[in-house]
Structures are given as structure tokens and as C-alpha cells.
């Protein structure tokens, strides 16, 4: 996870819009997102976001708000753009050369795609947890201490110890890891590694945590612990999670957004989406009628 300056050069200004024929998308009479994508007091706002991989448009005009201390789940069939969209929220797509983003993502009143935005700082504010646990080949302690060190958040060792302990406690890993902080992180189990990655993310005090299928490589018990953790973290953080498990989306989130072929089809309270969604595509997907 080396962050270099190449990411601060964003290509949004040089985007040319690929012409898209509506009928190439088999989504019936889609005209606009059903439900309530916008909120009164959002933490993070996406406005008219288009994402292109070379000439292919992966995301079509998505506008979506994420509320404070809210867990929002993004679901949809493979290739629907949910991960792509999630990655635009902290400019993770910058690392892909052919990827271009149009539109605005507003965090704390600033468009994160502004040229003046410091991407390193942005990614401290908007942290990310990936599908496969990816601890650094360092000790458990150093994994968590890495962020605070490079961001210069602490000046003394004692302070750093405290940050590491707090992060590990919040991630529910402290009891298991406190006696082996100097041991390699790769020696932890998959579920522990994933919680370590979450600890590493929250060690830099982010505002928003993005999770891209954080449990798909974990067993049911480790999954349950992560889900429990998501519920606890949502008291202090805003969380956007992409998941293929609809039951997981139903369990952990307050709002659910359904993506289909790069379009945001429906957004609504999770209860509503899973009992009586308004859009037929949402209905078909969550009831297992295609995909």
C-alpha cells in the first residue's frame, strides 16, 4: 500500500462521454432511481457520477447520499458496478489508468475529485477494507501503527501504543492479539486478519469506511463477528458495504442500494427493499430470479 503522487493527478477533466444507446441495456423502462437516494443531511454525496473504463461506461449517472453513522449496503449482480462505485468514493479507481470518473463526490463540502484534493489525506478519511484480508508482512502492531505513523498522527511511542490498542479493541481483536503484538500478522486466522485490516483502517480515525465484500473469504463465525463489528462501528463511523450476500446486506445495513448494469435502480430502507421493493429488477434479483 504505497501511495504515490501519481494518484493526485486526476483525469476527470479530460473525460469524453462515451455515447450510450439506452437499448443496449436490458433494464426495461429505467429512467431514474426508484426510492430515496438523496438525504437531507448526508455525510457523503455522489452526484451524477459516470465511470468509464476506456470507452466502456461502467457507471451511469449515479446520485446517492450516504447518511451520518449509517450503514448502506450496495447489492447487485456481478458486473453491475457496485464495487466500481464504491471505489470511486475514495478514488481507489485512480490506480487504474483507463478509468475515468465524471461527476462529483462531496465529502465535508469538497469534491474529492478536485485537483486540490490530497488523495493520501482523502484515503485516511475514507478508509477501505477489501474482500481478501491483506495485512502487511509485518507484525500485528506495525500493521495497525502503519497509518498513524505515515500520517504523523502521533509523536510519542506511548501515544502510538494507545492508538494501536484502541483500534484493536474497536475491531474486537485486542483480547486475541495483545500477547502477540510483535508476531507476524500473517500468522492470524482469516477472520482475525480481516479484523486486523479493519483495525488498521480505523487507526487513522476515518470518517467513512468502505467495505468491499469484507466477509466473502470468511467462515460463518468470523462473518458473524465482522457483522457484529460493523454494527458497533456504525455508532462512530459511516459505512458503505458491497456484498454478494443478500442476507448480510439485510442484517447489517439500514439502507440498501440496488445496482444493475451500471445504474442505480433502487435505494430504500433495507426493511422495505427486502419485503416489498418497488422496482421489478430489485425484486427479481433479491428473490433469485436471475443473476
Amino acid at each position, binding site marked *: 500500500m504505497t501511495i504515490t503522487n501519481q494518484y493526485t493527478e486526476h483525469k476527470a477533466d479530460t473525460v469524453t462521454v462515451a455515447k450510450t444507446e439506452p437499448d443496449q441495456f436490458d433494464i426495461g423502462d429505467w429512467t431514474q432511481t426508484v426510492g430515496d437516494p438523496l438525504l437531507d443531511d448526508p455525510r457523503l454525496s455522489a452526484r451524477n457520477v459516470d465511470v468509464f473504463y476506456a470507452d466502456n461506461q461502467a457507471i451511469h449517472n449515479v446520485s446517492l447520499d450516504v447518511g451520518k453513522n449509517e450503514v448502506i449496503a450496495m447489492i447487485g449482480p456481478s458486473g453491475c458496478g457496485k464495487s466500481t462505485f464504491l471505489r470511486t468514493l475514495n478514488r481507489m479507481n485512480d490506480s487504474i489508468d483507463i478509468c475515468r470518473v465524471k461527476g462529483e463526490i462531496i465529502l465535508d463540502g469538497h469534491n474529492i475529485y478536485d485537483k486540490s484534493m490530497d488523495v493520501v489525506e482523502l484515503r485516511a478519511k475514507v478508509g477501505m477494507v477489501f474482500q481478501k484480508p491483506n495485512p502487511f508482512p509485518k507484525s500485528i502492531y506495525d500493521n495497525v501503527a502503519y497509518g498513524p505513523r505515515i500520517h504523523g498522527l502521533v509523536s510519542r511511542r506511548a501515544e502510538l501504543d494507545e492508538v494501536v490498542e484502541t483500534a484493536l479493541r474497536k475491531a474486537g481483536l485486542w483480547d486475541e492479539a495483545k500477547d502477540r503484538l510483535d508476531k507476524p500478522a500473517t500468522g492470524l486466522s482469516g477472520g482475525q486478519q480481516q479484523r486486523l485490516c479493519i483495525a488498521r483502517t480505523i487507526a487513522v480515525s476515518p470518517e467513512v469506511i468502505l467495505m468491499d465484500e469484507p466477509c466473502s473469504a470468511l467462515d460463518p463465525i468470523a462473518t458473524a463477528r465482522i457483522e457484529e463489528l460493523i454494527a458497533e462501528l456504525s455508532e462512530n463511523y459511516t459505512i458503505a458495504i458491497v456484498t454478494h450476500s*443478500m*442476507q448480510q446486506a*439485510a442484517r447489517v445495513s439500514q439502507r440498501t442500494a440496488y445496482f444493475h448494469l451500471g445504474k442505480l435502480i433502487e435505494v430504500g430502507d433495507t426493511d422495505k*427493499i*427486502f*419485503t*416489498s*421493493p418497488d422496482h421489478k429488477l*430489485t*425484486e*427479481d434479483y*433479491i*428473490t*433469485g*430470479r*436471475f*443473476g
Partner: protein
Amino acid sequence: MDKSHFDRHTSAQYNAELEEARKNLMQMGGLVEQQVEDALKALMEMDTALAQRVIETDKTVNDMELEIDEECTRILALRHPAASDLRFVIAVTKAVNDLERMGDEASKVAKHTLELADTGSGPQGYVELRHIGEKVRQMVSQSLDSFARLNTDSAFDVLQQDQAVDLEYGTAIRTLVTTMMEDPRTITRALNVMWSLRSLERIGDHARNVAESVIYLVKGKDVRHIKLDQVEAQIKKK
């Protein structure tokens, strides 16, 4: 939502399980409908043999309730149904419960018929019984039909009929009370008629519940305990 809606899952096995539950519900519905019809016929014609059969059928109805409930539990546990599938399973579970209770009430009518046959027949309450009975039988049939066709208009009609039956029931009870006061010798008989009326009225209520389940299933709206005009508005809403 149309009937084919339940037949388009990626998993054909899942389709088959839902279809099985639907089929069994309809079969149970048919049995209960017959039970209600027979109970009425036995009452009107004082046919004690038929009344006995109605009481015996109740066992089959109870068994079917258990069987379908078990099926639904299995679908919930293994398939984790969502949205319309979830509503379908919930609606089936509720409808099965209501059908079983209808069966119970039909047996009660049959038991009162046997008692009435013992005490000897008389004209009091006969017209009301026939009238309310016929209406209720119609409601049962229509509620099942609206479930099979997923037809909310027809289900709403059942709700309206139930209101009419409730009114008629009130009137019939008042008439019977007057009869009892005028001639205490009729009390035993009038009570049996009253209880039969009560059972029929309850069957109507259960038919109404089934119809409400249909509206929940199709529209995703819970229309229990609200006024009819509000129900109508919910149905019309897209």
C-alpha cells in the same frame, strides 16, 4: 404480479417447493370449502350423517395444516425467501392457519346440528342461518379464488362482504334474543342456532383474513385493522 411470477427462479427446485406449497394450500382450501358447504347443508336439512362426516374431515384439515406449515418452515430455513417470495410464504402460513380455524368452526356448526337434531327442529333463525351461511360460503370460495389468481379486487370484495355479514349477524342475534325472551322454552334451541350463527360469522372473519393475506402478498401492504376506504386506497396505489 401474476401467477407465473412464482415460476421464474434460477433454482428450479425452489420453484417446485413454492409451487408445492401453493398447490397444497389450494387443496386444503378446497377441503375446507367443502366442509363449510357440507356443514351448512347438514344444518339446513338436519342431515346428521353429513354433520358427522364434517366433524371427521376436521382431522384431515388439521394434518394438512401441520404439513403445509412444516413445508413453509423448511422454505424459510433453506431458501431465505425475500420480497414477494417471503410475502408468499408468510401469506400461505397465515392462510393455512385461517383455513384450519374455518374447519374448526365448520365442525362446531356440525356439532350444533347434532344437538339441534336431538332437541327437535323449529323455524326460528332458519332464514338467517341460510342467508348468512350462503354468504359466508361464497366468501370462503372467493377468498381462495383470489389467492389462486392473486386478484386484489376480488379479495377486497371479500372484505366488503364481511362487513355486510357482520351487520346481518348483529340483526339475527337481536331477533333470537327477542325470541328467547318471549318464550323461554326455545332457549336451548335458540342458543344452538346462535352458536351456529356465531361460527358462521367467524368463518367469514377468517375468509376476510385470507383476503387480507392476498392483498399483503400482492401489494406488500398490511391492510389489517384499517378502514375499508383506506384498504381500497392502498390497493389502487401503484
